[in-house]
């Protein structure tokens, strides 16, 4: 099939849908990444419970029974985990945003000092 027949297959709604999804997700991406700035605190949650909360500027290693986490040079990474596909390890070091490990129900988030911009209630306060 040549490009010409491909264009014939396309409907206006296809193009409209594509543009809508593209602009929508790009806008959301810009909006969210503007809200996610470089953090100062790392929070480790397992099973939706806050386990640890450390400043990001102190290097340390955190050993959980299923995962090793390293804080180094203002960034945090999962360096080893016992899950099958190790997506969390592949994500590497982050200084903002979050690392999510689904099999172990673990979320590592980097946040600004104390206050969360999006107004999520802090478990420790």
């Amino acid at each position, binding site marked *: *099939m040549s490009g010409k*027949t*491909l264009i014939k*297959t*396309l*409907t206006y*709604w*296809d193009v409209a*849908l*594509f543009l809508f*999804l*593209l602009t*929508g*997700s*790009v806008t*959301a*991406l810009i*909006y*969210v990444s503007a809200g*996610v700035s470089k953090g100062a605190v790392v929070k480790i*949650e397992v099973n*939706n419970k806050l386990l640890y909360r450390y400043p990001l500027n102190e290097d340390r290693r955190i050993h959980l029974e299923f995962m090793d986490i390293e804080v180094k040079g203002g960034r945090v990474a999962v360096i080893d985990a016992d899950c*099958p*596909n190790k*997506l969390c390890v*592949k*994500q590497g070091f982050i200084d903002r*945003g*979050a690392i*999510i490990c*689904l*099999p172990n*129900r673990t*979320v590592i*988030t980097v*946040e600004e000092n104390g206050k*969360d911009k*999006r107004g*999520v209630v802090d478990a420790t306060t």
Partner: protein
Amino acid sequence: MQQRDKLTLAMLSAFAVAITGFERFIPTPVPWLRFGLANIIILITLILYGFKAAFTVSLIRVIGGSIMTGTFLGPAFVLSLNGSVLSVLSMGALFRIMPKIFSPIGLSLIGALFHNLGQILSAYFLFIQNFRAILVITPIILLLGTLTGAANGIVTAVALERLKKSRDNVHNT
């Protein structure tokens, strides 16, 4: 269902499972980015053999694929199942109600969108109730889903065109 149709479904399912298995070996820049190439097979099944057939192939793909990759009944399986069911339902509904509005490319975009929404929602409600973490990854997933969905749709359109041609040839000779 005729014997021949059963064989066709079995073959399509085998394609879908095989594609799911091989897809894991394609290196991607973002670790959790998946191309969803099996959706090409699901879409072709939907358009040529109808919703029931597509639903069947999709279920076989999820179960077969998860057994192959060793995630059967794990969290990844639950997400994959919810995403796939939602995806095939949305594409099937759209194809039945308004078959002329979208080409396979539009259907593929809708399928990718609902697959991702199903996964994100079930990740949030079943596993991780961290709104902030989910919020951070959602736009990236939807953006990548739109791009891969469009690419899969184009491949599907090309494949359907070729299939039609070869069918015509068979009928003419």
